[in-house]
């Protein structure tokens, strides 16, 4: 169910996916189309100094980067487990060589062997002209952390990728698409640039939909101060893929708790692209309004939606990192909330509403980075007649191919469809499923394009979407 016409009528610019169709024929080794980041002449004077400064500063920490600069044994295990290298085993996609982009410069300036032996030991001088390659290479890593799962030392190349992107961001070389999303999100608190009015209109539309569908008045409360649960959906889950929001509303309705939760017309998109551009200041600035809004609403629980990286930023970074001190609320994910009520038998389903074979795709940020793997399965098994698994799964699942923000970049669509998404396409095809549930807006967008591009008959959606169709009111 997409409500594009309805959204257009309330003045919401709904993101079109022009490139999602079967546009170009598959290429064997598609080149990354250039994100057109020519380095401005005026910049080159201080630029080298700034880049080298950022890299040599790693010597003082954080510990994780310092270790990764100093102790890769170059065994090549990461390459066998990387979705991008699997898709196309080219040198530029080898995780070790990508990390070497800055490791070689760190070696040159900060290690004894690098200072003495230089290029003989893989140390390199920085050249401004290399930055274009940095952009291409760092934006062809999906940040899925699969390498870290299998590396004998647990080296997480996504941390290095993020560092490279952070340096690029500092000198203004972040790809335009990403820049635009960050800017929009910081200005409007959502990545679509939608206004509170548009949000309210969309919610009213969803409530009408539910009356039409079930003949029952299921509420989606907005801006209720004092509601226990503050629901933060991922980007697009109200405007483009609204079924999950309806599903959660139905859960609250069945539990008789419609007056206990609320959404916010100021903060309705948990996406945080600062995580992807490597800019910590942006990441925190994007995060802060949500924490303040939860305080203003006097919520006891911040209920995060089906968005892997949004939940990760809140739960694994902001909360333990105490960005804003101690919090007066808990942070849980909506799938944990719903699954708990399914386990306690408070919700009932008509599985025949979802007869098709359904497979769950573990988003990297939920599976590997937050350890949420069983809850979505509990929900899908309760609401679908034919639930299937793809292998490997959970912590070892392959990335969809659109992680770390790549999903939003249609200028590298060819790369995403034919290289980074190749393994996932195989995995999904092997299950015979006709619906892929992914608890993540980035995965959903990328997988939707992947399924269309390769002309499969597979639909892509969320977890609460399936619940929404089968739950008994």
């Amino acid at each position, binding site marked *: 169910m997409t409500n594009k016409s309805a959204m257009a009528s309330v003045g919401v610019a709904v993101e079109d996916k022009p490139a999602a169709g079967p546009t170009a024929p598959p290429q064997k080794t598609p080149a990354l189309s250039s994100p057109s980041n020519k380095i401005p002449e005026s910049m080159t004077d201080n630029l080298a100094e700034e880049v080298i400064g950022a890299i040599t500063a790693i010597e003082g*920490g954080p*510990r*994780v980067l310092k270790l990764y600069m100093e*102790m890769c044994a*170059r065994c090549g295990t990461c390459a066998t487990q990387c979705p991008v290298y699997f898709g196309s085993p080219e040198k530029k996609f*080898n995780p070790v060589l990508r990390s070497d982009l800055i490791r070689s410069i760190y070696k040159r300036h900060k290690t004894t062997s690098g200072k003495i032996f230089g290029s003989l*030991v893989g140390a390199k001088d920085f050249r401004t002209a290399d930055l274009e390659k940095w952009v291409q290479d760092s934006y062809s890593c999906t940040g899925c952390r699969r390498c870290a799962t299998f590396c*004998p*030392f647990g080296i997480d190349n996504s*941390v290095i990728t993020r560092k490279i992107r952070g340096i690029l961001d500092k000198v203004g070389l972040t790809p335009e698409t990403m820049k635009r999303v960050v800017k929009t999100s910081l200005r409007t608190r959502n990545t679509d640039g939608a206004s509170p009015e548009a949000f309210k209109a969309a919610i009213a539309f969803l409530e009408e939909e539910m009356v039409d569908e079930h003949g029952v008045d299921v509420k989606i409360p907005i801006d209720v101060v004092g509601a226990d649960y503050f629901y933060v959906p991922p980007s697009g889950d109200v405007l483009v893929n609204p079924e999950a929001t309806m599903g959660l509303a139905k859960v609250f309705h069945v539990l008789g708790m419609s007056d206990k939760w609320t959404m916010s017309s100021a903060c309705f998109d948990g996406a945080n692209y600062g995580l992807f551009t490597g800019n910590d200041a942006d990441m925190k600035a994007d995060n802060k309004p949500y924490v303040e809004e939860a305080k203003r609403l006097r919520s006891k629980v911040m209920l995060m939606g089906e968005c892997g990286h949004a939940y990760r930023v809140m739960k694994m970074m902001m909360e333990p990192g105490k960005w804003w001190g101690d919090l007066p609320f808990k942070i849980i994910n909506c799938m944990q909330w719903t699954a708990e009520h399914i386990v306690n038998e408070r919700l009932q389903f008509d599985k025949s509403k979802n007869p098709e074979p359904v497979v769950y795709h573990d988003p990297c940020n939920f599976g590997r980075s937050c350890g949420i793997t069983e809850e979505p399965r509990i929900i899908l098994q309760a609401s679908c007649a034919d639930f299937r698994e793809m292998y490997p799964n959970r912590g070892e699942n392959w990335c969809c191919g659109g992680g770390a923000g790549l999903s939003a970049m249609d200028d590298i669509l060819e790369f995403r469809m034919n290289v980074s998404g190749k393994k996932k396409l195989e995995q999904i095809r092997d299950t015979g499923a006709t619906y892929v549930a992914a608890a993540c807006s980035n995965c959903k967008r990328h997988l939707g394009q992947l399924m269309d591009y390769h002309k499969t008959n597979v639909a892509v959606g969320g977890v609460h979407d399936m619940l929404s169709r089968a739950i008994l009111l």
Partner: protein
Amino acid sequence: MNTVKFIVGVILPYVVVPAFVAGMSYRFWTWFKSPQPAKMTLFPAGGSTFREVLAETLLFPSLFRGDRVLWFLAWFFHATLALVFLGHIRVFTGAIDRMLEAAGMSPKGIDLMSSLAGGAAGILLLAIGLLLLLRRIALPRVREITGIPDVLATLLVVVIIVTGDLLRFSAPFDLEQTRVWAASLLSFSPVIPKNEMFLLHLALSQVLILFIPFSKILHFGGIFFTQTLIKRR
């Protein structure tokens, strides 16, 4: 020639051992003092961090799941290396022999056990070392990330293994000679070892030990730090 022997057998040991201890301590210290990053737990992560890091260090389960062939080579290489390392204690002191004799073994029995276990380990190490080198050259994904230091480090280890094997298999080696030498170093009245193959083996080993804190072989200490980062809940 005597000068070279003097440097290898007398000077270098006094340099290498403190340099190694200082180098490793320095590296550990710089890692330890650099600030803790944000939590970066990699799931599934359950139970005790200590136990998981220990398991990774002793059995390489991540590598086992990631690259079975490399696990086989790497685990047996490291496990054999650890055995050989323990076996080398006998080179420097007669204390082990005395303990084993006290436990009822005959000197002949000890020698036999040593030649069998040590001999097998020496051959196994050499075979795996060469296979690792072959892997570096043969597999594109490994070849393209291989630099001169990677090849040199493996070659150095292989040559050390070869000289060690030659010592074991060429002629009966007189352990008394090396024990006297080790004791003389400890009492700061050093004598120069005479066996030239031993001196070569010793020289190369010392080069390796000296380079550990400054090379990728550093991973034998770093693994505790990196694994803790992703296992810590």
